């Protein structure tokens, strides 16, 4: 206690001990991969290959001219089997390139000492980051190159690396910080160089003392980077919560971190930038925590993008037998439930959480008793019990008036509700209605 943090929030059970002590291991090379052309927030890519083409590991197979986008690459060598609409872990269908592997792998790795950052220009870093298809690896998958190109007149003073990993069960970021702290620190310096920021911060929750120590060692005596130890509280890793906790700056309603001179990136993103700039390796694999009470042997695996959930889960002893399970892309608070295990791991898959039996929530709920738990938990200072009712009953004007659009969808309200009301689900409905009305109004003009 006594560490920096934000107001309100919750203290869920974390269950991180299932995987926090397990080294990251390489997953077996998949025979086929399904690579969605949309793995990022923004415009989907156009395929650059066609059925029957031979592709090499790391070859760019999809790109688009749009500013907010990131290219995708082949994660294995082989032949393009097909290009088709396939189920995407985001809960929709996306055009995907299916590659049948030839079993060969390419060696990516150190080619000597890390590149001297002073020899790189900000512009070249940005280009390499975009070329490598790097996106935010905490889950939202926002194209990193976009964050590195702030609009004119907005100066970036600080880059904050997000090492909070406040989602229960997930330990992928923890293991990166512990096992590859030099990559994280180098990546952070590259981000500072690209944005012109003079200061770098790494925000870590106090429950990862070994990672804090490893990063301290990697930073050494340098003063350009500072580690900020934060209270273990959910959603500490939400961008706005992290910035206010670490730097005391509040991102105004409807604004972005860069409006307060800050850019936030995940620690995994920083490590990916290291590999891209030093080894020329695009973002074709990532560390995934496979955990939960529904999987037999929880592990941390380095998985090729496009590997199916089923293949990954089979390397973790498979699912527990009998009964229902919920398989999530991400952690239990913000993850998305999957209708099939055929969905692929994508750039934003920080974890595959499988929950079973008693942990699965019931769909029955009671009346609101106005216990105020949701009001005391909402990190955005909203009144979720009201917004839930407005969303559920399509009272869009009231929903907007009570600032429903400021909701960051962290799920604290639903988590604490003793009546088990699906508050966030209703709030999402409210936000959807607001969007639809705006679209309608725009179309009418």
């Amino acid at each position, binding site marked *: 206690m006594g560490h920096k943090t934000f107001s309100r929030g919750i203290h*869920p059970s974390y269950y991180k001990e299932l995987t926090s002590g397990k080294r990251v291991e390489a997953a077996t090379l998949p025979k086929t991969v399904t690579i969605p052309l949309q793995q990022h927030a923004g415009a989907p890519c156009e395929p650059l290959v066609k*059925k029957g083409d031979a592709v090499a590991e790391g070859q760019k197979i999809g790109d688009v001219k749009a500013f907010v986008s990131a290219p995708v690459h082949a994660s294995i060598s082989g032949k393009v089997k097909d*290009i*088709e*609409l*396939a*189920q995407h872990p985001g809960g929709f*269908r996306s055009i995907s390139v299916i590659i049948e592997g030839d079993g060969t792998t390419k060696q990516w790795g150190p080619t000597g000492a890390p590149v001297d950052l002073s020899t790189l220009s900000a512009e070249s870093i940005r280009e390499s980051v975009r070329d490598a298809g790097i996106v935010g690896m905490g889950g939202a998958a926002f194209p990193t190159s976009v964050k590195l190109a702030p609009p004119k007149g907005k100066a970036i003073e600080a880059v904050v690396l997000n090492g909070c990993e406040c989602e229960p069960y997930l330990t992928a970021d923890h293991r990166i910080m512990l096992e590859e702290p030099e990559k994280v620190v180098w990546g952070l310096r590259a981000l500072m160089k690209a944005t012109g920021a003079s200061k770098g911060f790494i925000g870590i929750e106090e429950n990862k003392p070994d990672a804090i120590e490893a990063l301290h060692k990697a930073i050494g005596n340098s003063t350009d980077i500072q580690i900020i130890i934060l209270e273990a509280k959910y959603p500490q890793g939400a961008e*706005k919560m992290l910035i206010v906790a670490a730097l005391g700056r*509040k*991102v*105004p*309603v409807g*604004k972005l971190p860069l409006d307060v001179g800050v850019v936030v990136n995940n620690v995994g993103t920083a490590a990916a930038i290291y590999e891209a700039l030093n080894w020329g390796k695009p973002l074709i694999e990532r560390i995934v925590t496979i955990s939960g009470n529904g999987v037999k042997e929880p592990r941390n695996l380095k998985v090729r993008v496009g590997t199916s959930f*089923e293949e990954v889960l089979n390397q973790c002893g498979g*699912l*527990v037998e009998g*009964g*229902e*399970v*919920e*398989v*999530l892309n991400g952690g*239990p*608070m*913000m*993850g*998305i*439930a*999957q*209708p*099939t*295990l*055929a969905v692929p791991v994508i750039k934003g898959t920080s974890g595959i*959480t499988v*929950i079973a039996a008693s942990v*699965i*929530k019931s769909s029955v709920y*009671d*009346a*609101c*008793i*106005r*216990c*105020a738990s949701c009001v005391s938990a909402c990190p*955005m*200072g*909203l*009144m979720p*019990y009201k917004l839930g009712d407005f969303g559920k009953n399509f009272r869009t004007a009231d929903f907007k008036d009570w600032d429903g659009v*400021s909701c960051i*969808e962290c*799920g604290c309200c*639903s*988590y*604490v509700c*003793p*009546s*088990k009301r699906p508050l966030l689900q209703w709030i*999402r409905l409210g936000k959807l209605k607001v969007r639809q009305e705006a679209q309608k109004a725009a179309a009418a003009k």
Partner: protein
Amino acid sequence: MDTKEIKTAPTPEPPSQAAAKLVISSSPHFLNTESVPKIMHNVVTALLPATAASVYFFGWRALLLIIVCVASCLVTEYAFQKKRNKPIKIYDGSAIITGMLLAMTLPAGFPIFGAILGSVFAIGVGKQLFGGLGYNIFNPALLGRAFLMATYPVLTTTWVWPRTMEKAVDAVTAATPLAMAKFEGKLDVPLMDMLLGNTAGSLGETSAIAIILGGLYLRYKGYINWKLPLGYLGTIAAFSAVFWLANPAKYPSPLFHLLAGGAMLGAWFMVTDMVTSPVTSLGQWIFVIVAGILAVVIRLFGGLPEGVMYSILFMNAFVPLLNKHTRPKVFGEAGAQKV
């Protein structure tokens, strides 16, 4: 490439025969273990010390009243839910709390038929007519008590001495410390007796210590917000201190106000009623401060010796308004509190 070439993948086969059934739901996918029945049952537990104290001081008659009220509340709740075709939720404990609280505000000699009537009114009118748990505006137990007060003004204020007092021998009608202070100008009731509960008064209201014990249990469990009971009691103490300091011979001391009548029971179990108290921090402060001032004003200058019940009921009516106008500031919002 031509988009026409893109075909839809067939619906994926289930991965294997032994595969578990996949469930889909909206995030968050795991919730804490709180529930409405759990909260309510903890409140019932917290009322047990006061129940025990009432039986100790007023005998089996007290227990009989409590049982009658709880049973009538449960039956009324059941009847309304059945009639309204709603799921039967009498086991959630909320009707038990209403019954216990109502009984605790009654004198030990209160007639059984009156207790039944009060319970039916509390649950029927005070709760179910509004739509059941969560929809009522007023605290049902207090509404039941107010109904009885209006219906049987004499019976609701005909007190008996606790059996532990020697005066109990000539157990005619007794006077509560508040009534003695108001109508007889007697301010010399020993505070220790008031703390323990050895005075005339309503069943569960006399023993401050038993109520505090239950309140602290609820605080420990995290089911009450400290600012509600302490804000209410603090306001009563501070506001009554003004008069006491001005004229200690005429006005009772703040400590007397805290220990007398329903202040303790009201502060720990009625002001803290989740359904009928505000959800915002500022709203809660306004609620308890105004209620505390009202309680003292009624006690000192009103026609009644006790003002706790009406102070809380009065403020219950303002809760929706308070919630609306004391919304917290949205994160990153410029300017002051929304009004």
